[in-house]
């Protein structure tokens, strides 16, 4: 599989298998991560963790560069803010996010507001005990599902929450239990800032037909049920090559803290 891009000119995300480095070896990809990326890579002693970082950062740099063909060199880089959040060195309205798991890196860019992306392998079975990161309502909904559906549902909740934390700039300030994920059909009055269906429908696959399926019926709304300054976001899920689950959080409706 080569890199797969989903989205529009305004909001897009791309997936890249880590082993292939999107056509270039991981070592070769080090050229594409800028000086700060190379410095960060040197700090990561575990080879697989380093490879994931390098492929993810290179993917992000590539997407940023495509949006600014007139720019060169250091201007095109991505740096981390004080909270570890990636941002273009010259942001110019562009928001970015990145995630990686064993085997796949994904990166997202948006010209129309905050964005957060998260990926997990659908084969993952070592999910933390649900009580540690789900709200009481989420636990009840989970318990109502057949056993055979619970692990997949948990993976959907996990990536949705992590993508939302990234998009809402709440990493480290809001916990996973401070976010609640709602199926759109569960709650008609959910405080959404946009059209969830539109987000879910934006996807198409440019160079790997069939590799990405848009989980339109699974588009959900997330918001912070306990926080008077609640932020909300819209989440769409995608499966990549049948092996990975991606959540994309957009349309953040409240200013970050």
């Amino acid at each position, binding site marked *: 599989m080569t890199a797969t891009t989903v989205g529009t000119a305004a909001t897009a995300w791309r997936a890249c298998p880590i082993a292939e480095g999107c056509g270039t070896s991981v070592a070769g990809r080090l050229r594409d991560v800028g000086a700060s990326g190379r410095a960060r890579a040197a700090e990561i002693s575990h080879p697989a963790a380093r490879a994931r970082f390098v492929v993810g950062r290179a993917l992000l740099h590539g997407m940023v560069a495509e949006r600014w063909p007139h720019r060169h060199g250091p201007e095109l880089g991505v740096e981390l803010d004080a909270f570890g959040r990636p941002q273009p060195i010259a942001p110019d309205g562009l928001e970015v996010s990145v995630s990686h*798991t064993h085997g796949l890196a994904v990166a997202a860019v948006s010209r129309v507001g905050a964005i957060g992306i998260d990926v997990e392998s659908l084969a*993952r079975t070592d999910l*933390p*005990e649900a009580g*540690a990161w789900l709200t009481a309502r989420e636990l009840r909904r989970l318990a109502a599902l057949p056993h055979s559906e619970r692990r997949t549902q948990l993976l959907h909740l996990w990536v949705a929450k992590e993508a939302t934390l990234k998009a809402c700039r709440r990493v480290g300030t809001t*916990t996973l239990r401070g976010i609640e994920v709602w199926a759109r059909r569960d709650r008609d009055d959910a405080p959404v800032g946009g059209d969830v269906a539109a987000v879910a429908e934006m996807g198409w696959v440019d160079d790997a037909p069939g590799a990405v399926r848009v989980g339109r019926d699974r588009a959900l709304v997330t918001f912070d049920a306990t926080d008077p300054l609640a932020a909300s976001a819209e989440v769409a899920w995608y499966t990549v090559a049948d092996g990975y689950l991606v959540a994309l959080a957009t349309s953040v409706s409240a200013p970050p803290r």
Partner: protein
Amino acid sequence: MNTDDLRALVIEVLSGIAPETDPALVDPTVDLRDELDLDSMDELNLITRVSERLGIDIPERDYGKLRTLDSAVTYLANRLGASAA
């Protein structure tokens, strides 16, 4: 339980989370993510399993204090009032 016991317990839990590596060989001052290829799911597993084994509640605001082996041991020792080995 002294700090050596706590270190051994954290290493034992890490061995279950990252079975392909040897947590006993990690640099105790370096971020476990970088040394053992842990992600946030692994981190939450570490926290919930350690808190279960020790019978203590680790509040979410303290999660960042368990990022290296040394800082995890220091944090747990403070919570338990443990003596140095």
